[in-house]
């Protein structure tokens, strides 16, 4: 039998899990990543990973995890895969435990669990407050083992440019660029799994890492891979503002008892610690007595915006609220939250064990992503799969905290075997594909590079990118008004025109980061429009998508998935029904128990 070959693009949790599964099936796998995979953005996940192990005897079940996830996502998620994920989650924890993840333990030596947003159960396993890092390392180590035994070939320091798609519309491999030599090369594969993560850079500043540009997803979209629910963007309620990055302060701070508040008096001048209890406004606890500080992220974020912009109660008149853990014993903080408290201390020079942190919401996650089916992570282009944050299944209109790590590992875990099965059964493999198909794609990409390197003008890519970020953050995050969205769409169009007048300040052919960034920026602009146009058309409020002019969820008209297609070099939105076969939609409210 012909030996198939698989490519995985992206080495975060989803990509590594897919790689391991392909390697275990005995199929050679080539793993592409911009950064050494151990430096992938998954390391930034902090609080934990959900699984209904019922380790605290609360009567938690996988069905309750499933219900919390669907309800938390405001019924926009297709239900079959979410159900399978929640059922698989306890097994995923066991696997990670066997791989040696140093999860926090109970006195009995069992895994400890904490509470997270959008649930009333202790369902979140954690390793301090650096759980993503710990999980990524465990998978990285397993991949390194497979690599040393010859089953995995890593290509770190390569960036994905485009898929190779033949005339029959079948994916046959990828075209990538070596970030040192700037060589553009094609790599045949019978199936490719994309695990290219988040899109934070489209919003300029976010909690995401530098590589989270969405460039790969956008490139694929422009080659005919559909993109779903792009308008659903999660803004995390608690982050530390910064000029280069908005640094996340994990929901686990609240899971361990942290409280969010502002002074009741907007003219308050005293230091936080000297403000008496009665003069503090614990607005989440007051507004949402059942879930309190652990309401889902979209709810908490809107509440903070209301406090700051409508009630004018931001600390010292600024866009900030207190996230207070000073009442929690220092020993507990150091054992369970050290990783994030250390970040606050290092970047602000203030010890959050002593003084309440000042935080504000920040763009954090995309629920939308490449369209994949509800069975095995296949996109609409045969031979192309997607898993992890870059695809749209699992989180509906709002993701629950600590569900991203489990969705990455579950999605990657089923994409691997699915790609193997497809590759083994495909009638004609990549090696039998006409070499002209590869040469054509390579030439197209080389020409795009050449065009950027030779074009003349006065625009700078970083300036365009900063403006894009400002537009997106202002109009396409927490509160969306149609006029503002139209405005944003027009402005992005202007930026696309200016993009063609960019002057690259680096025209060299060795480790040219400016050229690479320019390529990414072009793709960011397209995806920004997918997000904006999707938001503009959806006239309702659902999960993270909030329009004050359409404040209610509208199931009659909008209980459907947005599916963007690239037709004649433009975005075309189509809609398809949501699979609600398991849990019928019901109103979503967190001020009372559901």
């Amino acid at each position: 039998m012909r030996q198939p070959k698989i490519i995985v693009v992206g080495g975060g949790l989803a990509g590594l899990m897919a790689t391991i599964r392909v390697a275990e099936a005995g199929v050679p796998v080539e793993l592409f990543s911009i950064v050494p995979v151990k430096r992938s953005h998954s390391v930034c996940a902090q609080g934990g990973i959900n699984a209904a192990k019922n380790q605290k005897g609360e009567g938690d079940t996988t069905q309750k995890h499933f219900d919390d996830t669907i309800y938390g996502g405001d019924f926009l998620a297709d239900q079959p895969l979410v159900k399978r994920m929640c059922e698989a989650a306890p097994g995923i924890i066991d696997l990670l435990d066997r791989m040696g993840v140093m999860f926090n333990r109970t006195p009995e030596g069992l895994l400890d669990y904490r509470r997270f947003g959008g649930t009333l159960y202790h369902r979140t396993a954690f390793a301090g407050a650096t759980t993503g890092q710990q999980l990524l390392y465990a998978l990285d180590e397993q991949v390194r083992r497979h690599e040393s035994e010859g089953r995995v070939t890593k290509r770190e320091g390569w960036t994905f440019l485009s898929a190779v798609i033949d005339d029959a519309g079948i994916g046959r491999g990828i075209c990538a660029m070596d970030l040192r030599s700037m060589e553009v090369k094609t790599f045949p594969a019978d199936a490719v799994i994309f695990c290219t993560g988040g899109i934070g850079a489209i919003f300029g500043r976010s909690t995401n890492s530098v590589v989270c540009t969405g460039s790969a997803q956008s490139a694929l979209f422009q080659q005919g891979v559909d993109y779903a629910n792009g308008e659903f963007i999660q803004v995390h309620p608690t982050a530390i503002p910064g000029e280069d990055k908005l640094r996340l302060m994990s929901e686990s701070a609240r899971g361990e008892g942290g409280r969010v508040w502002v002074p009741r008096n907007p003219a308050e001048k005293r230091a936080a610690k000297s403000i008496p209890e009665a003069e503090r406004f614990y607005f989440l606890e007051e507004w949402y007595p059942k879930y309190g500080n652990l309401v889902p992220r979209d709810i908490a974020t809107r509440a903070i915006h209301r406090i700051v912009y409508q009630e004018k109660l931001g600390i010292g008149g600024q866009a900030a609220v207190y996230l207070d853990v000073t009442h929690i014993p220092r020993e507990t903080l150091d054992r369970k939250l050290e990783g994030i408290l250390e970040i606050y201390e290092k970047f602000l020079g203030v010890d959050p064990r002593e003084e309440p942190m000042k935080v504000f919401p920040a763009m954090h996650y995309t629920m939308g992503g490449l369209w994949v089916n509800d069975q095995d992570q296949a996109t609409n282009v045969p031979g192309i799969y997607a898993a992890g944050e870059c695809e749209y299944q699992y989180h509906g209109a709002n993701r629950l905290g600590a569900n991203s790590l489990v969705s990455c590992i579950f999605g990657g875990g089923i994409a691997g075997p699915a790609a193997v099965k497809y590759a083994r059964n495909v009638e004609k493999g990549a090696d039998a594909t006409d070499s002209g198909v590869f040469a054509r794609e390579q030439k197209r990409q080389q020409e795009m590079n050449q065009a950027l390197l030779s074009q003349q003008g006065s625009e700078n890519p970083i300036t365009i990118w900063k403006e894009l970020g400002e537009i997106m953050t202002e109009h396409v995050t927490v509160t969306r008004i149609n006029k503002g969205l139209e405005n944003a769409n027009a402005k992005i169009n202007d930026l696309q025109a200016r993009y063609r007048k960019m002057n690259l300040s680096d025209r060299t052919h060795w480790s040219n980061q400016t050229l690479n960034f320019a390529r990414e920026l072009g793709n960011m602009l397209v995806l920004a429009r997918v997000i904006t146009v999707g938001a503009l058309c959806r006239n309702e409020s659902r999960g993270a998508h909030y329009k004050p002019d359409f404040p209610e969820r509208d199931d009659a008209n909008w209980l459907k998935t947005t599916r963007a297609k690239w037709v004649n070099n433009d975005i075309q939105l189509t809609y398809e029904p949501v699979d609600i076969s398991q849990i019928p939609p019901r109103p979503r409210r967190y001020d009372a128990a559901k």
Partner: protein
Amino acid sequence: MAEGKQVIVKVKRQASPKEAARWEEFALPWRPSMNVIICLRDIAENPVTRQGKQTNPVSYDSNCLEEVCGSCAMVINGKARMACSALVDQLEQPIRIEPLSKFPVIRDLTVDRQFMFDSLKRVKAWIPIDGTYNLGEGPRVAPEVQEKAYPLSRCITCGNCLEVCPQVNENNNFMGAAIFSQVRLFNMHPTGAMHAKERIQAVMGRGGIEDCANAQNCVKACPKEIPLTESLAEINRQAWKQALFGWLVG
């Protein structure tokens, strides 16, 4: 540049591995809470030196910008550290930025740290599981073991401990403290301990634990405050034990 507070930055530039290094100086507008990454981005947006000469943006590695990915290690004012957590207001000016010197320079501040990942392979820094299919829960671990192991598992492979180590040099293949600390981590895990011998075998010989000269610079340079000298001592102990035991049963 107009009046207003400035940040003066000197960057060691090198166009490619074959070309000679040179310094360039930049004057950037000061803002509150600037870090070295923001300085490098400012230069990319306006790549003009303090002397008014047009130049290229500086090539550098960065990713998470919160000291958890290990990408942006460089030498700042003579000290190996992460650029993201190097706050301008805490640095003496002019701020001198250079690439790590113990790794091959690719361009400007980007270096090739593949040696570290290869070393992790050499010492088998993993738990050899049978497979990812469902085999039930992992072994129980006492909280005090977890509390010892977890700090070791926060190593970000930044390379700062190699940069400051006198034993990491052209004449020596010393793997560096980070790697031995990982050996300690895996040998501490109940399943990992079953294969401790293989790892200890891998740290004996060229570049191995006996090349540690106990300078103790590593522990001071670690941005994650990992007790690296404890790890070195522990691995040294395990290596001696294994050598002695091996000789006894010879």
